[in-house]
């Protein structure tokens, strides 16, 4: 039997033996009252015991195989949703921040109820309830009809009512939920800063309003659940009443043997155990459906990067591999709206050539799109228009893995995963050995910090690990990129959050450590441009060459007058618009 069917079969077996147990006991008691020889009862007694044993053992098996199946399903769901999120992360509307991703995982985890608390009880009831009604019909057809009607009301009508009512209530709750989550989030993040801005009272009022609206929704759900319980319990009682009336009348007329009446009445008592979990299962189903709805809304859509290596799209040309040796990176006509269609154009016609081994600084006003450009050059995002090529091969046509092995970006939001420092560094290079990792840390100015750590590279970092400051976290991110085998590194604000002396040392060390590799450094730090061969300024969505070194303090040159006279630091730029 397949793994998925086993819990269902065992559940049906357990449910039916429970019902049969009661029916045979009813028969047994009435038969006993007829004072037969004791031997006549023995078979029934043995059957009752056997049914009890079967019920208990099947129940045990059902729970065990059910949990096994549920855990398998959960693992499958997690991997599947992870893959879907991985295809979309970075796209507009997909949460990128750690705290918002928490919500994503909590929705995936909500799916674990689906097997054990929705599908299994439904499946068991779908088989066991008709079987019970059939058994009743064999004893007395009219009682069978009554049972079928009662079971239908308790097992289909009540859950359907709960589902319909609760689904509407939960859907209506969605705005209140979102508002409460956002407000609470802000209260926890900004806390007294809100009060300091004079917004504390208004914020508290909004929070209470959202909480009250959510509470109203909860009460509607409570009413739905109560209606479900009333219907299910009422159906069970009503059926018992009907079966009792029909059965006793039939017995009085002599149409139903007294022993069969005993069996029938107890059958009616036991049958509704099978459908009892269904109203609750309907509620669970609503929760699961909402979770799937939210998840789909987050991850539905085309993959952020069309990957020729993994997409089975016949229209796409076959994957091209990137050239093995040193290669120039060139961008042509890059136009991009990072916020998605309808949002402002941040990159508006970027042309850029990076020669192998070059050291380039990318400066510009904050919010000007430097980080966006960096992520496009590293192909963490595809531009809306334009093309980036490495050694003449468009990055779009290469496998994503191939691009990562050539170009590596250390972003501003380096995340430390819970685990050892070594495991975190190996994200950059899975095979890195300890000396290499220690060297990379020294290159980013974390040598003394590493030496002071009691467990060295084995020190736990991340949520429960040692405290790591924002600047240190950022530098660990740079170290990851340094460890990587990529010949072209893009570092986004490596010196942010550092004081002047540390920033100087970091830049020198990183430049030394990347000797022979191509380096593009995104920085707002105009005092530290001297070591770069070229300085480019991104302003109003376009790139211009700017004076390097200390001259840059006076600001980037206007586009009409490229600073050709500033020596080797400034190279002319091809511009198309």
């Amino acid at each position, binding site marked *: 039997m397949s793994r998925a069917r086993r819990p269902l079969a065992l559940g049906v077996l357990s449910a039916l033996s429970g019902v049969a147990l009661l029916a045979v006991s009813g028969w047994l008691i009435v038969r*006993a009252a007829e004072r037969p020889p004791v031997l006549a009862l023995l078979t029934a007694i043995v059957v009752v015991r056997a049914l009890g044993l079967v019920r208990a053992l099947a129940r045990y098996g059902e729970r065990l195989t059910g949990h096994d199946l549920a855990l398998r399903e959960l693992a499958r769901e997690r991997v599947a949703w*992870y893959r879907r999120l991985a295809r979309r992360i970075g796209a507009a509307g997909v949460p990128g921040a750690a705290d918002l991703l928490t919500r994503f*995982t*909590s929705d995936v985890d909500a799916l674990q109820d689906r097997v054990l608390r929705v599908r299994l009880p439904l499946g068991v009831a779908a088989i066991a309830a008709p079987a019970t009604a059939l058994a009743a019909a064999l004893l007395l057809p009219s009682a069978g009809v009554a049972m079928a009607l009662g079971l239908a009301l308790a097992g289909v009508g009540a859950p359907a009512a709960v589902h319909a009512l609760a689904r509407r209530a939960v859907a209506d709750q969605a705005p209140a939920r979102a508002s409460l989550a956002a407000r609470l989030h802000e209260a926890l993040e900004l806390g007294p800063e809100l*009060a*300091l801005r004079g917004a504390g009272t208004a914020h508290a009022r909004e929070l209470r309003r959202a909480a009250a609206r959510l509470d109203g929704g*909860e009460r509607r759900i409570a009413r739905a659940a109560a209606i479900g319980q009333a219907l299910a319990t009422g159906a069970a009682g009503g059926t018992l009443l009907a079966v009792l009336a029909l059965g006793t009348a039939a017995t009085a007329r002599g149409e139903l043997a007294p022993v069969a009446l005993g069996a029938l009445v107890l059958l009616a008592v036991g049958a509704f155990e099978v459908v009892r979990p269904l109203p609750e299962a309907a509620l669970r189903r609503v929760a699961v459906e909402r979770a799937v709805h939210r998840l789909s809304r987050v991850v539905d859509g085309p993959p952020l990067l069309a990957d020729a290596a993994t997409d089975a799209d016949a229209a796409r040309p076959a994957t091209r591999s990137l050239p093995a040796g040193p290669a120039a990176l060139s961008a042509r006509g890059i136009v991009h709206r990072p916020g998605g269609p309808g949002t402002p154009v941040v990159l508006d016609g970027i042309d850029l050539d990076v020669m192998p081994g070059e050291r380039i600084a990318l400066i510009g006003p904050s919010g000007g799109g430097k980080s966006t450009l960096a992520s496009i050059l590293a192909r963490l995002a595809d531009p809306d228009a334009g093309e980036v090529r490495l050694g003449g091969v468009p990055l779009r046509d290469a496998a994503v893995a191939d691009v990562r092995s050539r170009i590596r970006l250390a*972003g501003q939001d380096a995340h430390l995963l819970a685990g*050892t420092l070594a495991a975190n560094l190996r994200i950059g290079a899975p095979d890195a050995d300890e000396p290499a990792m220690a060297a990379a840390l020294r290159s980013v100015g974390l040598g003394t910090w590493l030496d002071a750590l009691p467990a060295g590279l084995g020190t736990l970092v991340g949520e429960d690990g040692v405290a790591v400051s924002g600047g240190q976290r950022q530098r660990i991110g740079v170290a990851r990129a340094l460890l990587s085998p990529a010949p072209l590194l893009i570092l986004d604000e490596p010196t942010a959050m550092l004081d002047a002396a540390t920033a100087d040392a970091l830049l020198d060390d990183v430049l030394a450590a990347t000797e022979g590799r191509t380096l593009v450094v995104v920085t707002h730090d105009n005092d530290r441009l001297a070591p770069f061969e070229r300085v480019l300024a991104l302003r109003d969505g376009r790139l211009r060459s700017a004076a390097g070194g200390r001259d840059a303090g006076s600001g980037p040159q206007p586009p009409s007058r490229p600073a050709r006279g500033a020596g080797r630091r400034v190279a002319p730029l091809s511009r198309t618009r």
Partner: protein
Amino acid sequence: MTRGRPRWADGGSGAGRASRHSGLGIRADGPAAGGPREVHRRLLALAGGRVRAGLVVAVACGGLGAAALVVQAWVVADAVAGAVDGRTVGTGALLVLAAVVVGRALLAAALELVARASAASAMRRLRERLADRALAGRAEALDGARRGEVVTAAVHGVDALADYYARAVPALALAAAVPAGMVVAIGWRLPLVGALLAVTLPVVVVFMVLVGRRSAAHARERRTALAVLGSHFLEVVRGLPTLRAHGRDGAQAPALERVADRYRDESLAALRVAFLSALVLELLAMLGTAIAAAVVGVLLAEGRADLSAGLFVLLLAPEVYAPLRDAGQRFHAAEDGAQAARRLLAALDAPGPLRTDGPSLDDEVGPVGGSERAPDPSRAPLRSEGAGVRGGDGRPDALAPVDLTVEPGRSLALVGPSGSGKSTLLALLARLRDPDVGGVRCGDLPLTAIAPEDWWTRVSWLAQRPRLPSGRLGDALGGPAGSDGEARLLRAMRRVAILDLVADLPGGLDLRLEPDDRRLSAGQLQRLALAGALASRAPLLLLDEPTAHLDPDAAARARDAIMAAAEGRTLVVATHDRELAARCDRVLPLADADARSCAADRTRATLEPAR
């Protein structure tokens, strides 16, 4: 928050083994705010009278339901016995049964309604308490990830609590009363069977407690395994942007599968035993019922009992044990449900940044340290008297004790390397937190004696990495459209030359910010927030790195605007910007943490005039 949370080192424990494969450590939730019983006790205390009354009603519904069951069994047994004797059921009996049926349906609905409403009320109280605390500066500063967990628990925790209130509490209360009541009812009709069941009942209960303890341990183990799996998944998802940048995102999917497989095996091994104890209980209950049935059979066969009594006992015998079995199962299920509440209680328990005087954690949020009216910092000097903030956990102090006086209406620049405590000192002056040692005074009043809400009206603050609350942009920075605040904001924006920036935003000041709004870059936020801070009329300006992230032109304009805004006000600014520091009346260098540890134990502010 990390207290009581096991750390999963590489190697060693099961989780450690998982981490070697995934390359990541994983953690599980420990009893951060006590065991489930403790969690629910506190929840009840916090939830207030209505919720407690609701639970009493829920239990009463359960008790009445059990009584109705006895009546139902009686009527059914009589009717069947009568039919066997050739009598038809009387209308009276059918009416009684109908009444019982309706009553049971109503009781079941009432139980569900009351219990769920109680859960919702408790959760609402918890949410509001948490929000009040956060807004009053009494919630622990949480990092992004943990904040996400707390918010998720607060928004989605009701279902789990409803399980507890609607099932576990009534089941536990009923387990104590119903079995004995059923035995009495049975004993009334057939004393011999009643006596027999009365003897088996304590045996079953004792056995149940013994087995229950064992299965509780296994249930805990399973929960831990599930929590470990859940947090591993959470960690991988949170790290996804970073993993993706290094091309390691694909490698995590098989790792997730491997970890899940391992934990499934471990979890099932625990469950095999945990469910075994449930099996034993079920078999014991069956044995008890079977003995009762056998005795009834013998009594019937010997003619010492009538069929009606026999059927009545047969119908009720399983109900003797059912509440016990139910309670055990429901209780473990409810322990799972305690998780969300525990997370929220832990967030409530954690010490906040402001000192609290008196009110215990479960009380209403009272005034936080002090109720005095705030003096005007543009008239009274602001003094730090050895105020410092400890680092905790053996880390260097976040701020070594500082003595300094800021004269009213003057400007002071805090300079020094990152990590020297500039931001922390500003936060102390703003009273976004209270110092661990020493104190801050305005005039003669310690800040801790002043009502924070009042002090905050005196302060204009720019954070190092400003974040704006969601809602209308103009409201967040200045005030509602057309207000004085907005007029001042527009003037300030002109000074820092960001009117263009605002004009480019969709809707300008009417732009509605969403949570996690990525339409504004960090630099844009910085400049908007600076304009907002300068537009404030508060007499004390506290600015943290106002010119960082700005290009030279913008920085020069920002400096001018800051100095203009500081006229007639007190300004304290933390900055790496030498030009800005040079324009302040005084400069206070703060030494970095490493230098402090070997130098003097206290930074003496030698307030050298900068020019």
